[in-house]
């Protein structure tokens, strides 16, 4: 299929739009369509689907332009159509889908069923219309609906497929796409026809056709073979069921293992929280100790601390006093007066009136308190000295403790902050341990089921083997007996031919499938490594499960979103490239696997890659197939033009006039 042109009428924001596609003339096979976000690139892409299959993926099923819908009146219906001109094989087709819309009296838009017509022009220029009954078949012949999405796809679709790949989901679909696109489908159908079932296949039918009346032994053996076939079928069904159960259990186990990983990180969070709570508790205790120590220091030093200034002022006064310093400690004027009154000195000498002794002792009045205060002042100074002496840098001690307190505060704050902002929000008050236990037990249960089913599959496989042996021996004996009857001899010969063909085809299929898969992997890796600098490569197993492998460790790695997109990009582009290779090959074997030309229509393939990858993507795309149509954001437009210039045959630009109208420049 090669696209020639498309014409849109009232389709969503395209009131009247048509454009041509590059036809690979002089190697220019790329059509680029540039448009800002929201200009309707995806809608345009959807118009292909709508035209071919009558489907869209819009939420609003009404494809009629909103302006037209608003201005409609009940008596005048409006049409929407998309007309696609394309070549397929040696024929040219014009496919036009029309849908009429009416407005009822309550201003509701009523769509009618869409209709489509196909005009076909053959090699000799004869034009004919395809019958209504054959239209769908014709479209499927051109491009099957299931495969269409591999050729017309938007950015979101790439993302979804990327996720499906990393989750091993939809692998059958990938396998089917490969079979369909790379020519394996025909062989598969032929095999099914020959030996696909015990009753309806060619070989099955021969088995039913033996003439049992001629020989009772033939009947017995035919019954035996049928019985074996029934058993083999039943065992195989049972095996398939077990296999499906195992897959389901594996899926559940993997899913739970993922969940467990999350909860294990929660468990780590819980432990971290407890650790932080300990830090908080310890810091609070240290802080309380430091606070108490400040209080204790204050308690001990308050007297000294408060009086230092007053002592200094007092000293400034006292320093001016002239104190003899000859007074006797704790002796006052009262002591002397006592001695005079009693007329006797402490030493026992009498102190008679007007005696020398009396006069001598009276002199003490001048140097003792209250007349002299030397002694009191000395006492005072001594207390002052003690007070100052016990002042032990209270402020420094306090500041040391305050610094410790502030460290503790910071530790507490940090811990609380981590708990609040990074732990509690994630834990959300759940009992992690309980959940982990439940998940673990589910995983264990899955493991048990898997192992049990595997055991049963082994047993079934043995039973099937036994039945097959029994069947083979019966068939051998049947063959001998069959040769005795003319009719049965004929059947035996036909069957032998059918079986031989089946065997040849089956071998051929297995070989081709393996080859196709290995070529697919090679091609994918070539494209994939261009995009990913060769650090990663891709593997595909027989179940079409795709793994990304880090080359340096040769082990599977989890892919990022960007890498998953690269995988799907390389998957699709490889298939298209291989389909083209088959077609152009001189090798007969490859030609047998050939399918038709397909265009590649991609929405925003570049927006998913960063700048350094865009170049390799741009250089890869034009060589994939005969026709490439890509939609590009206006910001990537210049890059695309720069890298693909030589291959660009047509370039269009979408210009958004309003929310309801886009035109093509």
């Amino acid at each position, binding site marked *: 299929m090669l696209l020639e042109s498309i014409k849109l009428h009232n389709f969503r924001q395209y009131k009247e739009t048509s454009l041509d596609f590059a036809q690979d003339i002089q190697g220019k096979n790329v059509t680029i369509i540039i448009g800002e976000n929201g200009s309707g690139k995806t809608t345009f892409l959807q118009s292909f689907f709508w035209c071919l299959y009558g489907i869209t993926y819009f939420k609003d099923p009404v494809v009629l332009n909103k302006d037209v819908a608003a201005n409609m009146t009940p008596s005048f219906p409006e049409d929407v159509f998309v007309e696609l001109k394309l070549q397929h094989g040696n024929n040219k087709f014009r496919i036009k889908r029309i849908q009429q819309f009416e407005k009822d009296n309550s201003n509701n838009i009523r769509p009618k069923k869409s209709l489509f017509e196909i005009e076909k022009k053959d090699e000799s220029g004869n034009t004919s219309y395809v019958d209504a009954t054959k239209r769908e078949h014709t479209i499927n012949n051109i491009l099957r609906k299931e495969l269409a999405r591999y050729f017309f796809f938007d950015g979101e679709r790439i993302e979804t497929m990327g996720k499906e790949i990393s989750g091993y989901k939809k692998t059958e679909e990938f396998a089917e796409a490969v079979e369909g696109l790379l020519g394996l489908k025909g062989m598969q159908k032929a095999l099914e026809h020959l030996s696909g079932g015990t009753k309806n296949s060619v070989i099955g039918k021969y088995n039913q056709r033996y003439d049992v009346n001629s020989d009772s032994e033939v009947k017995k053996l035919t019954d035996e073979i049928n019985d074996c076939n029934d058993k083999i079928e039943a065992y195989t069904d049972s095996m398939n069921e077990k296999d499906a159960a195992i897959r389901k259990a594996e899926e559940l186990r993997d899913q739970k293992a993922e969940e467990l990983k999350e909860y294990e990180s929660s468990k780590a969070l819980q432990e971290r929280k407890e650790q932080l709570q300990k830090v908080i508790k310890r810091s609070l205790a240290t802080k*309380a100790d430091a*606070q108490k120590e*400040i209080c204790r220091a204050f308690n001990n030093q308050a*007297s000294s601390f*408060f009086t230092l200034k007053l002592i200094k002022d*007092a000293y400034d006064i006292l320093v001016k006093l002239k104190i003899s310093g000859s007074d006797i400690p704790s002796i006052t004027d009262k002591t002397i007066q006592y001695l005079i009154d009693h007329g006797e000195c402490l030493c026992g000498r009498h102190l008679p009136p007007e005696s020398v002794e009396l006069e001598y002792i009276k002199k003490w009045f001048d140097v003792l308190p209250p007349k002299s205060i030397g002694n009191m002042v000395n006492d005072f100074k001594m207390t002052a*000295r003690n007070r100052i002496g016990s002042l032990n840098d209270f402020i420094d001690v306090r500041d040391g403790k305050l610094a410790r307190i502030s460290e503790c505060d910071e530790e507490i704050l940090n811990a609380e902050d981590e708990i609040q902002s990074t732990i509690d929000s994630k834990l959300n008050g759940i009992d992690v341990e309980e959940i982990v236990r439940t998940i673990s037990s589910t995983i264990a249960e899955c493991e048990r089921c898997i192992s049990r089913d595997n055991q049963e599959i082994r047993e079934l496989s043995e039973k099937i083997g036994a039945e097959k042996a029994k069947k083979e021996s019966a068939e051998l004996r049947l063959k001998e007996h069959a040769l005795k009857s003319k009719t049965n001899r004929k059947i035996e010969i036909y069957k032998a031919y059918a079986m031989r063909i089946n065997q040849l085809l089956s071998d051929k299929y297995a070989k081709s499938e393996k080859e196709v898969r290995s070529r697919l992997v090679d091609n994918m890796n070539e494209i994939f490594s261009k995009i990913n600098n060769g650090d990663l490569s891709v593997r595909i197993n027989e179940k079409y499960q795709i793994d990304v492998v880090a080359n340096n460790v040769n082990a599977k790695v989890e892919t990022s979103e960007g890498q998953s997109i690269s995988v799907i990009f390389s998957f699709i582009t490889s298939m298209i490239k291989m389909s083209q290779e088959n077609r152009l090959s001189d090798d007969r074997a490859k030609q047998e696997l050939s399918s038709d030309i397909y265009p590649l229509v991609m929405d925003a393939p570049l927006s998913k890659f960063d700048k350094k990858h865009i170049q390799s993507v741009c250089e890869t795309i034009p060589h994939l197939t005969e026709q490439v149509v890509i939609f590009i954001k206006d910001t990537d437009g210049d890059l695309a033009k720069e890298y693909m210039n030589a291959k660009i045959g047509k370039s269009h630009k979408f210009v958004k006039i309003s929310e309801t109208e886009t035109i093509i420049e």
Partner: protein
Amino acid sequence: MFDKEVRLIGKHAQYMSLLASNFGEINAKLFNRNIDVYVQAPIVGFLYQKKSEKDVKNKDSKIPDAHILKDQMINAKDNLVFNMQLILLLDKDYEPDEEKRIDKAFRHFGKDEKDFELFESYVLGGIEILYQKLIENAAKSDDFIDKLSSFTDEINSRYYSEIDKDVLLNSLN
């Protein structure tokens, strides 16, 4: 003097009790006992030039009186005498004449009842200052420690920036 039980009433009783109680959530105390408040208060009162009178307005209120036992007074007597001497020696408003102040502090110490009244008014004023600086509006331990830090910083910057403790200690020898 200073050999009898002391009883404080009204707000001063309340403030003194609070100053000598556990605070916040850590069970720490700013002052161990009432007597410790009583010893520091006159100095603080004098530093902040705050005198106060007995809170007779609240005499009959339900605020319990605060007591300091006689033994505790006697044990603290040396400190109390020293503090009172300091105040008598330095309070120029009370006695402008330096000679007379010296007499009041030493020669005639304890002989004038008014001197003791002065001392006691500084005790009450000091209690109010201590309450205001250390207790008022504080709830958590952090608040109390913050207030204590600010208060001691204030005293430190007000009075001690220019005093060299060691020089003073030497000159007193």
